[in-house]
């Protein structure tokens, strides 16, 4: 088995679309990540976001101050309205991030970049815990994750460790070295191990990897000084950082003058560690190919990752391996991917999507994603979304997808098409006889289309 354009669209992209002729080779497929679509659906990046966050922050502080000082009612009212208006801007940003993420995946030639971004952003799951942080999701995706999906893993790791969203999510911002300048002045402050632990357990070596509790503690000390807030973004504060040298995984890092370069050196070694290669190759193969990937495929991907930690070579090794094209064992799609796949199969006109108002976006995407158990970039823990088919295909998730598949197509096109015309271009491989029969026998176009989209053949990649 080898590269097949339709199969690639379903397994490695966001689904087949009559609007795009799929790339015909692995080389062309890899090149498809450099499409135009991302610039057409931009995210709020830090430079644009920062003044908005500061403005919102200031408006809220002003409102609270006036309330506390029992200022005249009219002033309080005006301040409250100003703060509410500023918060509405934040909501707009969140909604637009979701809209543009979906737009990228639904209208790209292949959706390969979106799939890689989704996978790696989930690997490095980070999210806002409250006001002013959630809005950084777009910046996180576009600066920490996306530039490196076919680059070097160490660059992605370092970018993630320096991103405010991750530092905030895993409680790094308050971590202070006990022997740092600040720690000695104020002994009550302490180290927080959360980020260090997840870096080793989830992001690099993997649970069961060759590290000890002492290594976690050492890494936590190395990471002190890494902080961020919503006003200035990322900062390295040497005064809060524990002086070295730090013993970590049998090596010594840094000296008595704490510096960001020590963090980078440790991150690079963790990123290139053989245990990391194995952990990442297995995880990627499980996501894209099967819950039980072949040892040959994983070994080839480990080799691709190599000593340099190349994600480009690891990804290419996967695409060039015969076992990656085995149609058996296709995983259940994640919900975002499932939705994008339906939009593509329906050949939804782009202007219909672009013109969707907030209410429609809520009804068609935001709420249904929650019902399908995968609210937009909200996860229950740093280990990200579930991957095993049995966890994804649960009764309530199936019901939510069925409910959506019965209603959403109406909003995607003007006048529902004959489901029999959609069927041939929706799936990767042969059309199961039972599905062909069901689509033909459905009593309405709604139900016929829903049969296609909830069928195992469509929901598996």
């Amino acid at each position, binding site marked *: 088995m080898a590269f097949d354009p339709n199969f690639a669209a379903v397994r490695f992209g966001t689904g087949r679309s009559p609007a795009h002729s799929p790339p015909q080779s692995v080389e062309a497929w890899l090149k498809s990540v450099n499409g135009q679509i991302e610039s057409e659906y931009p995210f709020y990046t830090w430079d644009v976001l920062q003044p908005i966050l500061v403005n919102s922050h200031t408006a809220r502080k002003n409102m*609270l101050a006036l*309330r*506390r000082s*029992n200022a005249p009612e009219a002033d309080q009212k005006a301040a409250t309205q100003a703060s509410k208006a500023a918060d509405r801007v934040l909501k707009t940003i969140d909604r637009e991030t979701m809209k543009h993420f979906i737009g990228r995946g639904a209208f790209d030639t292949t959706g390969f970049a979106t799939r890689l971004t989704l996978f790696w952003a989930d690997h490095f799951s980070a999210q806002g*815990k409250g006001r002013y942080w959630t809005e950084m999701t777009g910046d996180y995706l576009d600066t920490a994750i996306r530039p490196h999906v076919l680059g070097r893993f160490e660059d992605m790791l370092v970018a993630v460790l320096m991103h405010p969203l991750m530092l905030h999510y895993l409680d790094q911002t308050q971590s202070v070295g006990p022997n740092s300048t600040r720690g000695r002045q104020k002994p009550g402050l302490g180290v927080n191990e959360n980020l260090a632990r997840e870096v080793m357990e989830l992001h690099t070596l993997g649970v069961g990897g060759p590290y000890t509790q002492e290594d976690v503690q050492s890494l936590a000390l190395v990471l002190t000084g890494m902080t961020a807030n919503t006003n200035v973004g990322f900062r390295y504060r040497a005064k809060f950082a524990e002086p070295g040298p730090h013993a970590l995984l049998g090596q010594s890092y840094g000296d008595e003058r704490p510096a960001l370069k020590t963090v980078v050196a440790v991150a690079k070694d963790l990123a290139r560690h053989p245990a990391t290669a194995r952990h990442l190759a297995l995880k990627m193969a499980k996501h894209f190919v099967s819950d039980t990937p072949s040892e040959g495929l994983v070994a080839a991907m480990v080799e691709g990752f190599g000593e340099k930690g190349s994600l480009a070579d690891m990804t290419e090794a996967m695409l060039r391996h015969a076992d990656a094209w085995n149609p058996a064992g296709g995983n*259940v799609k994640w919900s975002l991917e499932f939705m994008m796949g339906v939009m593509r199969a329906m050949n939804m006109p782009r202007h219909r999507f672009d013109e969707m108002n907030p209410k429609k976006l809520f009804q068609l995407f935001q709420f249904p994603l*929650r*019902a399908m*158990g995968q609210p937009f970039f909200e996860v*229950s*823990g740093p280990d990200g979304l579930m991957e095993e*088919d*049995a966890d994804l*295909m*649960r*009764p*309530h*998730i*199936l*019901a*939510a997808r*069925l*409910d959506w598949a*019965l209603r959403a197509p109406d909003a995607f096109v003007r006048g529902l098409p004959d489901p029999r015309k959609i069927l041939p271009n929706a799936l990767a491989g042969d059309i*199961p006889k*039972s*599905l062909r*029969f*069901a689509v033909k*026998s*459905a*009593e*309405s176009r709604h*139900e016929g289309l*829903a*049969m296609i989209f*909830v*069928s*195992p053949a469509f*929901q598996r990649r």
Partner: protein
Amino acid sequence: MLDRRAFLNGFVGCSVAAHPLVTPIAFAGSPDSGRLGDNRLVVIILRGAMDGLDVVQPYGDGELAKVRRKLLVGPDNGALDLDGFFSLNKSFDLLHPMWRAGELGFAHAVSTPYRDKRSHFDGQDLLEAGTGSVEERGDDGWLNRMLQHVPGLTSGTAYSVGLDQMAVLAGPADVSDWAPDVGVTLSPQGKRLLELVMHDDPLFQQASSEAMEILTSLSTNPGPMDGGEDLMMMGDDMMGGDMKEAPRNIKRISNGTVGRLAEFTANRLRADARIAAFSLGGWDTHGGQARGMNRAGANLAVAIMRLRQDLGPVWAKTTVLAMTEFGRTVYENGTAGTDHGTGGVAVFAGGAVRGGQVITDWPGVREEDRYKGRDLMPTRDVRSFAGWAMRGLYGFDRDIIENVIFPGLDMGEDPGLLA
């Protein structure tokens, strides 16, 4: 034994962090019926930190009124007197008859072992993990750990209800989940075709047939009350026709998401399910607390009321436990609200509880009686109430409860919350 002082300061549960998990059979105290018997347990997680001092108001402790000038307390200000010392926030109107009938009670000045950081996220994580500290938290919740010790547990015994992920039920034991906000309208022909489409994929076939079974049972077998009319009438009855302002609001809640959560939970518990959990939010009342409390309190009241009505005779065998991540400051802030605190209230209800009582070792609310000078001092671990409920309802060994389900918990004396 746990030192009470140590609990007050939050230093508990460090020593038994990793109790070796032994197979269920090794525990002589596990229920051996293979099922959980007839008793039902519903856990409601109140997200956002409910202000226990405003829900169950210690108006008899004259100190509270001194630091709460806008958040008025006591029967003189419209609250419902409970026992001459405590009064119930008026947003819980609907439940006052249940208190009188001995089907509703409260535990006051309780908390999880969580201290000082007062973060919703960490606080809820700990409440649902049931461990002694955030650091000891594993991947499973305490209700799931209880289920792991039920031999022969079958699918459909426990339900996680609603769109919120219920960490309290997460873990290796088989838990069903359902969000009653999802309704599928599929023709009979569509249902048959769906079966056909799913037939050859066992995983999809299973998920699909379970989903269809639930949807069918919901549409053909509605609860004793379908909609809000009956509830309103019953409310009027129970209140002696004294519900002047509530009905519209109550009806809306009962027909909305909250009503559906309770309706579905009751639907499952009337059949094979024994355990269910869902969450209710809206308790983070930093400003304009009276308004926020009206909303959140009415939601909780309607949820409990609908459980009672939809469960019918099964209510007699039901225990509802509602718990929150932490309480709120004793004093009110500048915006007629309260900020994150420590000690608070847990609510228990059901035909199986001994209601009509506020169980508490009352610490007082003067500045020197408070935790860190600001919060209600917790005098008992809220986990012990869940522990005693499990013991009373299902006969779990104290050893399993204190070492496995709630690692490091000292259950203490039986607080007597069950009838």
